[in-house]
C-alpha cells in the first residue's frame, strides 16, 4: 500500500467512527463545537500513529481515548469558567479510572446527540452557507478541503466560515442545547432548508467536481435519513427525504454518455433506481400519515412520485400533477411554480390552456431573464403550429440560457421547427 492508500483507509475508518465519537464527546463535554475540534485532533493523531502501528482492532476506542486525553489537557490548560471546568475534569477523570469500560460513551444511544448536532450546526443564527458547511463537517465528516471543492470555494474561505460559525455558537452559549417539542418543529425549517440546499448543490450543479457533487446528494440523503430516524414524528422531514430519494433515483438516467442532459420524458426508465423509488414512496406515505401531505417538500415529492410511478411517459398522470402544482402554488406564490403548473396543464389539457398561463407570466420580473419561460412558450407554440412565434421564443431562450449544453438543445429545437414547418407545407 502506498502512503496515499494508507491515508485513505485511515480516513475511511475515522469517518465510520466519527458519528459516535462526536456524539459521545459532545455529551461528555456539553459543547458540540469543542467535540468537533477533538474528533479532528483524534484524526490527526491517527494519521500520525496508525501508519506505523497499523489500525487498532477497536479503532473507535482508540480515537475516543485519544480525544478524551486531549480534552483533559485542554481543559486543564484553559482558564475558562472555573466551576464548570472542575466539574468536567472530575467527570472525565472518573471516567478514565472506570476502565476497562473506556468506550462506554461510544455505545450509548446516539439518537438524541445526533439531533442536537444537527440542530446546532443548522442554527438559524448562522447564515445558510455556514450552516451547510458546519453540517457537512459535523454530521457527515467531510474535511474542509472536501467541502471547499464541493462548493467551488477556496479552502480558506470555508475554513474561515467554519471557524466563525463555531465562534458564534460558543459565544452565544448555543454550543449545547437541543430544541424540544414545539420549538423543535419551529427550528426544523432551518435544518431542512440546509439539507435541501446541500442536496440541490449536488443535484442541479452545472459544474464542479465530478466526484464530490454526487457526494453532496448522498450526504444530504444521509442527513435526511438521520432526521427521520431521530425525530420520526416530524412530517416535513419525511416529505423532504421523499423528495430527495425520488429525485436521486433518476441520477444515472439524467445525462447521456457525453454528459448532456436528458429531459425527464426522454429518460430510459429502466435506469431509475427502483430501491430508491420505493424508499421515497414510503417516506412520502409516512409524511401523509403524519398529516403533512400538504407540506412544501411533500407536495413536490408527490409530483415527482407521479413520474416515478409511471412505467412509460404516456402513463404519467398529468391532471394530478397539474393539481399538485396548483396546491404548491397556493402554498408558495412563485412564478417558477406557475410555469411548471403550465407545463403540466399543457400535457393534461392541451397547449392552448397552458399558453394562456404562460403569457400571463410574461410580465413577472422574476422570470424576465429566465430562459425556461421562453423555451416552454416555444414548445407550446410549436405544438399549436405557430412556427414563426415558436422560433422567436426558442431564439430568445437560447440568448438567455447561460449554459452551453442548454443552448445546444435549444438550437436543436429551432432546427426541428424548420423541419416541422417544411412537413406542414409539403402535406398541404
Amino acid at each position, binding site marked *: 500500500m502506498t502512503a496515499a492508500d494508507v491515508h*485513505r*483507509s485511515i480516513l*475511511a*475508518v475515522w*469517518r*465510520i467512527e466519527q*458519528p*459516535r465519537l462526536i456524539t459521545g464527546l459532545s455529551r461528555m463535554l456539553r459543547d458540540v463545537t469543542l467535540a468537533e475540534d477533538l474528533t479532528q485532533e483524534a484524526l490527526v493523531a491517527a494519521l500520525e500513529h496508525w501508519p506505523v502501528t497499523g*489500525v487498532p*482492532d*477497536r*479503532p*473507535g476506542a482508540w480515537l475516543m481515548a485519544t480525544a478524551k486525553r486531549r480534552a483533559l489537557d485542554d481543559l486543564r490548560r484553559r482558564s475558562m469558567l472555573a466551576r464548570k471546568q472542575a466539574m468536567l475534569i472530575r467527570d472525565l477523570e472518573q471516567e478514565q479510572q472506570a476502565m476497562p469500560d473506556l468506550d462506554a460513551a461510544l*455505545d450509548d*444511544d*446516539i439518537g438524541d446527540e*445526533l439531533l442536537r448536532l444537527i440542530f446546532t450546526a443548522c442554527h438559524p443564527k448562522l447564515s445558510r452557507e455556514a450552516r451547510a458547511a458546519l453540517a457537512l463537517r459535523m454530521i457527515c465528516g467531510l474535511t474542509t478541503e472536501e467541502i471547499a471543492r464541493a462548493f467551488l470555494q477556496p479552502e480558506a474561505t470555508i475554513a474561515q466560515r467554519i471557524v466563525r460559525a463555531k465562534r458564534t455558537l460558543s459565544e452565544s452559549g448555543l454550543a449545547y442545547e437541543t430544541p424540544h417539542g414545539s420549538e423543535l418543529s419551529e427550528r426544523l425549517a432551518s435544518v431542512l432548508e440546509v439539507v435541501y440546499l446541500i442536496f*440541490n448543490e*449536488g*443535484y*442541479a450543479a452545472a459544474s464542479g467536481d*465530478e*466526484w464530490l*457533487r*454526487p457526494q453532496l446528494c*448522498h450526504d444530504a*440523503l*444521509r*442527513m*435526511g*435519513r*438521520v432526521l427521520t*430516524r*431521530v425525530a420520526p414524528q416530524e412530517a416535513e422531514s419525511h416529505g423532504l427525504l421523499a423528495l430527495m430519494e425520488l429525485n*436521486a*433515483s433518476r*441520477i*444515472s*438516467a*439524467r*445525462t447521456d454518455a457525453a*454528459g448532456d*442532459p*436528458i*429531459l*425527464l420524458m426522454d429518460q430510459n426508465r429502466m*435506469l431509475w*433506481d427502483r*430501491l*430508491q423509488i420505493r*424508499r421515497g414512496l414510503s417516506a412520502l406515505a409516512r409524511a401523509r400519515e403524519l398529516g403533512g401531505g400538504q407540506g412544501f417538500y411533500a407536495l*413536490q415529492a408527490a409530483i415527482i412520485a407521479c413520474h416515478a410511478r409511471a412505467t412509460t411517459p404516456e402513463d404519467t398522470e398529468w391532471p394530478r400533477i397539474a393539481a399538485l402544482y396548483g396546491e404548491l402554488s397556493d402554498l408558495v406564490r412563485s412564478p*417558477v*411554480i406557475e410555469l*411548471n403548473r403550465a*407545463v403540466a396543464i399543457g400535457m393534461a389539457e392541451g397547449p392552448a390552456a397552458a399558453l394562456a398561463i404562460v403569457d400571463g407570466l410574461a410580465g413577472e420580473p422574476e422570470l424576465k431573464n429566465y430562459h*425556461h419561460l421562453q423555451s416552454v412558450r416555444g414548445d407550446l407554440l410549436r405544438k399549436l403550429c405557430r412556427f414563426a412565434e415558436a422560433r422567436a421564443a426558442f431564439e430568445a431562450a437560447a440568448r438567455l440560457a447561460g*449554459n452551453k*449544453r*442548454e443552448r445546444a438543445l435549444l438550437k436543436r429545437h429551432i432546427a426541428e421547427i424548420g423541419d416541422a414547418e417544411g412537413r406542414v407545407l409539403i402535406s398541404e
Partner: protein
Amino acid sequence: MRFMYIVTSPQPDKGPTPALMEAMGKLADREIKAGRMLDTGGLLPIAMSGAQVRITDGKLGVVDGPFVETKELIGGYAIFELRDMEEAVAAAREFMQLHLEHMPGWDGTCEVRVLATPGVDGACEVGTRLHA
C-alpha cells in the same frame, strides 16, 4: 455506493450468542440512525426453513433441506450506503470484531459486495427545473 454484506460460516448450527446479538443490535441501531444502513436481516438455518429451486441439465427441480453438502451457509445480510470501498471494509471490520469478542471459536466470513445499482457514478444534470 451501495454495498451488500453477506455473512457466511461453516458452522451454521451455531446461532449467535446473546452477547453478540446485543452488540449487533446496538451496532445496527446506531448505523440506521446515522443514515448509513438501509436494511439488515438474519437468516434461519436452512435445515429449518430452506428450499432450493435449481436448474440442472436444463431441468427445473425443487429440493428441500437439509443441504448436507453445503460448506458455507449464509447467516445474515445487510445493505449499506457508504462513500467508497474503504469505508465499507472499515464497517465490515467493526462488525466482525464484535464476533471475535462476543463469540469465541466462531469462524466466518463477511463478504462485502458492491450492489450494481445505477446512480453514483457522477452524472449530474444541468439546470434547476423542477421537471428535470
